[in-house]
Structure formats: C-alpha cells, structure tokens
C-alpha cells in the first residue's frame, strides 16, 4: 500500500551509533547495504552520528490533486526525504476527494513517477467527505488505500461512524479519525482560555475534541474494532484514550510536533503560522501529551504537514486557513525542545517517529537487521541550523519555526533501499 517511483536499489555503507529501540540496538555499527537490503551489521569505532530506522509520517497533506501550487507528490516527498522519512501517508481531503478507486488509481500511477519516498494514500470514509454515505471501502482497499479518514472534517453522524467501524472489517485497513464536534468548534480560531479571551478570538474548546474522542472510543468498544485517533491536542482526550486502552479498546493515537512544543501562549503573536486545527492548547494539555508520548499511550508523532499558499496565510489570523508544514523540521524541533531539555529520551522519540506510527497504521515497519530493506536516517545531533523559507523543499513555507535555531539535523535518508536525501 506504499507507492513510489520505479527504479533500482542502492549499495552503500554507513557508520555511526545505531539506535533501533525495536531491535534492541544501541551501539556503534557499520551498516552495509547491498542492492537496497541490509547485508551486514558489524562493530565500528565510536562515531558521533546517529543512525536510526527512518521515520514514518502517518499524517501528511500533499494537496494533490487540486492544489499543486501548494504541494505536489514530488515536492512533498522531497520534503519528507529531507526530514528523514522513509514512508508517509497522504490525506484524502483533496480536490477532488480521494473517495473512488479512479481518483486513487491516478494518484498511485503518478506516485510511480513522482514520489521520491514511498507514499500511502488514505481514502475518504464518506463520499466527498460529506459524512452522509460510506465510500466503497473494500474496493478502495483493493485499489491500494492505506487507511481511511475524513481528515479535515469529523464524521459527524454517530450512526455513520458505527457503520464505518463495522464495514472497515471488510476493507482490512485502519480507520483514522479527525475528532471534532462541529457545533462546539464552530467559529473557533484558538483554544478556549485566557489567551483567546484576551485576544477576542473565537474559542475552540477542548471539549470539541474530547467529546468526539469519547464517542468514537465508545463506538469502537461496542463494535470491538480498532481505530486510530489523529492529532490529539487536549488532556481530556488523552485521559479518555488512556481509559479506553486500559479497558482493552484497540485504539492508537498520534500527536504533532507543534502540539508537543507549543502552547496557546504562542498565539499572542497573532501569526497565522500558529493557527492549526486542532488549536494549540494550554500548558496542562501539552504536559499530558508529552506524558502520553513518553509512556506510549500516544504511540506516534505525526506532522499533520499542511501546506498553504503564501497569499492565503498572509492575512489576519482569523481569516487564515488552519495548518502548518512540518516534514522538514519534525525531528529537529522535537530533539531541540523535548530531548535536549530532558523531557523525552532520544530512543523514545526515534521509536515514536518510526516504529510507533508504522505499527499504528499497519504499514511495513522500518527495521535495522540483516535481510531487511534499508530504511535508515542518519542524524547529526550536534548540528545547529536556522529554519528559513529558502531551505524548504516543500512548495509552501507556512512553518511555525521560521527564523528559529534548531539542534539536530538529518544528514542522509535511505528509503526502501534507495538513498533519497543527502545533506
């Protein structure tokens, strides 16, 4: 269910401190890759570079088809390669929506010539993402859909959500949910709290997310079906997820670098690059997300990479669309703001950016072992760099990190046996 441009495999050797938590490796090794496959792992002398299983992003907007001025399969996957990713999953809220085998088929065909990094395409749960009728989930799965989501919009109807959970058994691919109760979030531009109160921004309360999370977890429990919760932001959602998992619900979840690094205090700047859905929330929410990421309740980091045209973000905050880009800064932002201050061990971050999302969305898991396809990222943890518009491979530049100094840099990315990025 992952597709990328046709072509051969590379042979190369890499040396460094290999950190592969899922394989129980943390030692200096020389990795030999022969025709795209790891053929040897040998002891090596100490080396400051870190080599890890390459990253998997379960949540990317490639804006194709429809908004190729914002991102294309090529630019988006080049950005992914530069961010250390060996696999990404693209959202179906395009123009047209990916809700039929024909639209999906054209994306698969284009990815075979354009996608630098293996790319999976999610298809819509409901036709046109209108929340009225189920898409042809089984046919879409047969045509290669990686998972199903109406991301960008919630599945408002509990009845349709229940049917999607039941019917997804036929499709055999996960359901990934954007949880938002629209009558609570309507008119909302920022987290409801002291900051939105002072700035006079329409409030988007935490309950707009957590109420839907609780509903979907209840339905999943009743139907005994798995589900994946996207871009969690609120502590109430985390608490609900924790309870459901303890009760045996097969629920997985992701959160984003911006929700892990920032709070709604950042919105005081009224910079439209700090406007996202769900919104940045309070300190207690960020604390809950970090705790959940550390203990594995939230098993995946997802960028929710959402490119927007410059002229659409160059407007007052309330008029700006939701979303920020993140593929090229995800590791460095989390390394700088979580690992260096001691909030999160490096191994945990690497696991939550690679094995965690791969398992949650059931895509092939990058592994460092002899005989595995090479999916590797080489990291220079000492590197310092400044985020600048000119450096982005993405066609868009709506980053919340513009101008900031970060630590840790992706030097090389090997995806499915091919070197796709070299700094």
């Amino acid at each position, binding site marked *: 269910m992952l597709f990328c441009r046709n072509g051969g495999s590379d042979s190369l050797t890499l040396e460094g401190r290999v950190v592969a938590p899922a394989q129980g490796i943390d030692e200096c090794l020389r990795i030999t890759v022969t025709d795209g496959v790891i053929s040897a792992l040998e002891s090596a002398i100490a080396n400051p570079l870190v080599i890890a299983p390459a990253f998997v992003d379960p949540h990317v907007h490639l804006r194709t088809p429809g908004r190729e001025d914002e991102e294309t399969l090529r630019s988006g996957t080049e950005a992914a390669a530069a961010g250390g990713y060996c696999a990404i999953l693209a959202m179906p809220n395009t123009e047209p929506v990916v809700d039929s085998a024909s639209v999906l088929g054209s994306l698969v065909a284009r990815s075979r010539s354009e996608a630098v990094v293996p790319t999976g395409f999610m298809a819509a749960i409901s036709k046109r993402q209108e929340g009225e009728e189920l898409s042809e989930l089984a046919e879409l799965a047969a045509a290669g859909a990686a998972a199903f989501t109406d991301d960008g919009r919630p599945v408002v109807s509990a009845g349709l959500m229940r049917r999607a959970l039941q019917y997804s058994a036929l499709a055999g691919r996960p359901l990934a949910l954007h949880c938002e109760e629209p009558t609570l979030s309507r008119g909302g531009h920022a987290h*409801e*709290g*002291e*900051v*939105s*109160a*002072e*700035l*006079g*921004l329409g*409030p988007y*309360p935490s309950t707009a997310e957590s109420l839907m999370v609780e509903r979907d977890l209840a339905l999943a429990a009743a139907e005994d079906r798995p589900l994946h919760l996207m871009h969690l932001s609120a502590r109430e959602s985390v608490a609900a997820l924790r309870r459901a998992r303890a009760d045996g619900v097969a629920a997985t979840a992701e959160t984003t670098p911006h929700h892990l690094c920032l709070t709604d205090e950042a919105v005081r700047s*009224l910079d439209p690059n700090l406007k996202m859905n769900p919104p940045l929330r309070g300190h207690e929410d960020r604390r809950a997300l970090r705790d959940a990421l550390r203990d594995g309740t939230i098993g995946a980091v997802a960028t929710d990479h959402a490119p927007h045209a410059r*002229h659409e973000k*160059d*407007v*007052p*905050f*309330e*008029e700006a669309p939701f979303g920020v880009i993140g593929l090229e800064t995800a590791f460095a932002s989390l390394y700088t703001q979580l690992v260096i201050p001691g909030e999160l061990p490096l191994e945990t971050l690497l696991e939550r950016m690679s094995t965690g999302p791969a398992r949650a969305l059931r895509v092939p898991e990058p592994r460092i072992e002899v005989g595995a396809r090479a999916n590797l990222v080489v990291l220079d943890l000492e590197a310092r760099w400044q985020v600048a518009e000119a450096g982005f491979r993405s066609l868009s530049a709506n980053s919340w990190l513009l101008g900031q100094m970060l630590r840790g840099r992706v030097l090389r990315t090997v995806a499915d046996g091919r070197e796709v990025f070299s700094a």
Partner: protein
Amino acid sequence: MPELLPPAPPRRHLLSVRDLTRDDIERLLKTARSLSGSLEGQVKKLPTLRGSTVVNLFYEASTRTLASFELAAKRLSADTMSIRSSGSSAEKGESLKDTAQTLAAYDPDVIVVRHPSAGAPQLVARWTGANVINAGDGKHQHPTQALLDLYALEEALGRLEGLHVAIVGDVLHSRVARSLVQALGLVGAHSTLIGPPTLIPRGIEALGCEVSSDIADAAAADVVYVLRMQQERMAAGEAFVPSLREYTALYGITPERVRPGQVVMHPGPMNRGVEIDPRVADSEAALVTDQVRAGLVVRMAVLYDLSTVARVSAPVAMEVA
C-alpha cells in the same frame, strides 16, 4: 552617488492597550487636556501636523471613530484621507496586504486601521512604514476608545485611581470591554464584567477583573459601562441568549438599576430599549456625549504623540506635556 538620506525616525504604533504603560496613559490624557484647552480659544486648528498625512483605512462601518479621527487630523493641520472597504479595491478582492502597500506608496505618516479581524493593524504595521493606530480590530482591541473613556471619566469624576467600573453586557464580542479592562487596571481602577455566562468569555478574569452574572453587582460600582448588544449575534444558530426581551429583563440598564451618584457610559451606537433604557440614556447620569467629545481630543492627542516623538524639531505652537 545617491544622496544619503537621514536615518528613518523610529516608528511608534498604538495597537493594543497592552503596549501602554501607566505613564503613557497619563501623558496622553494630559496632552488631550491641553489640546482641549487650546480648542476652546478662537482658533480651532493647530499647525502641529502640517505636512503630515493621516490615512484612515476602515474595513468596518463606523460613524464616531472615523469622524473623530478625520476631524482630529484636520484640527492638527494634517492632510487626511479616508478609505472605506465599500467602494474601494477591497470590494474587488484586493487583499489587506496589497491595499496597505498601495497606500504606503503615498508615504503616509499615520495609518488608522479598523478591521473585522484581530491582528489586522499589526499586519499593516509590518507591511508599511507608517505609524499605525488600531481603531478596532475584530473582538480584540480598541485602544483609543479605552483612552477616551478614561478621559471622560476623569473629567466627570475628577479621578481614576480606585474607581470601580461595572461593564455590563456582551463582553464576548466586545473589543471595547477588553481594552477598557486593561486600561482601567493600568490606572489603578478596577472592573467587574457582568453579563449572561454565554456572553462572558472563559478565561477573561486573567485580564485582572471580576466576573459576575448578577446585575445587582453593578450597584457597588461608581460607573456602569453598558456594552452594545450586537443584534447580529442573535442570528439563527448563533443565539447567545434566548431572546432580546429576556436579555433586557435581566441586564437592561433601567432607571431602577442606576444608583444615585453612579454615572453611566456607553460606547455607542446605543440600542435604546435593549441594553439601555432611553430614560437612562438621556439622563444627567449618562456621559455618552462627553465620551464622543472626549473622542476628538484624545484622538488628537494620540496622533500628536505618535507623530511628534519621531520629529526632528518639536512643535512650539502649543503647550505640551
């Protein structure tokens, strides 16, 4: 060789009450008082800003704010022009950025901005070289309204320190309330926000005010500040109160709800019979026309303050603070 230009003077903006100190407020009010004194003479016009250009860029309907900024600029001898979104290129879909940069090409000294979205004046400040005054952005800030309210209050009551102001009504949608709470806090007064819980934003007490849903709590205040009930907020699906009738019954400022000695303020435009009883609006206790008068001198003071600090030679035509 191109001629060397002198370094650009530092720009100053008035975007939010948050940017002001108590000293700033006291200086502005003092300047306004001295301007008021000079306007009482024979000559209503001062030469202070001769040669300066003030552009009013208004994306929302306005009577008193636009009129008072225009008149304030004219009284200070500035050249002034007013651009409204209706009838301008904004109607043809021109972005705020492009409109601001177009106006900036005429090199205005000051741009006064009113816009339905929070943060628009900050963007105009970023995209142009002018000093920018926020004349109301979304539900965020209206700093000159807060300043004129302080001016009118001080004129009427002789002090600001220690005053207690009850701000009654639709706080949720009110940039006036947000600016005023902050300004009152800066000068040592305090405020209580009173309204139905659906119209009081969650978290607003962080601005340093009390919150109540009981109109009886207004009795303890020196000042009852009545907010406009924005009727457009009553659209289907957007009804924050069950009916205007019920709102008026619970929160309307009637003569019975005004204690002797209290003064009543309203930023206008008033919905007589909704948030304020006409008998109160027309009573001795009402400072509404004092507020409008204060608007002129306070806006003159703000224009004067922003424009003169950056000048090479100080104006001499008037007594300055």
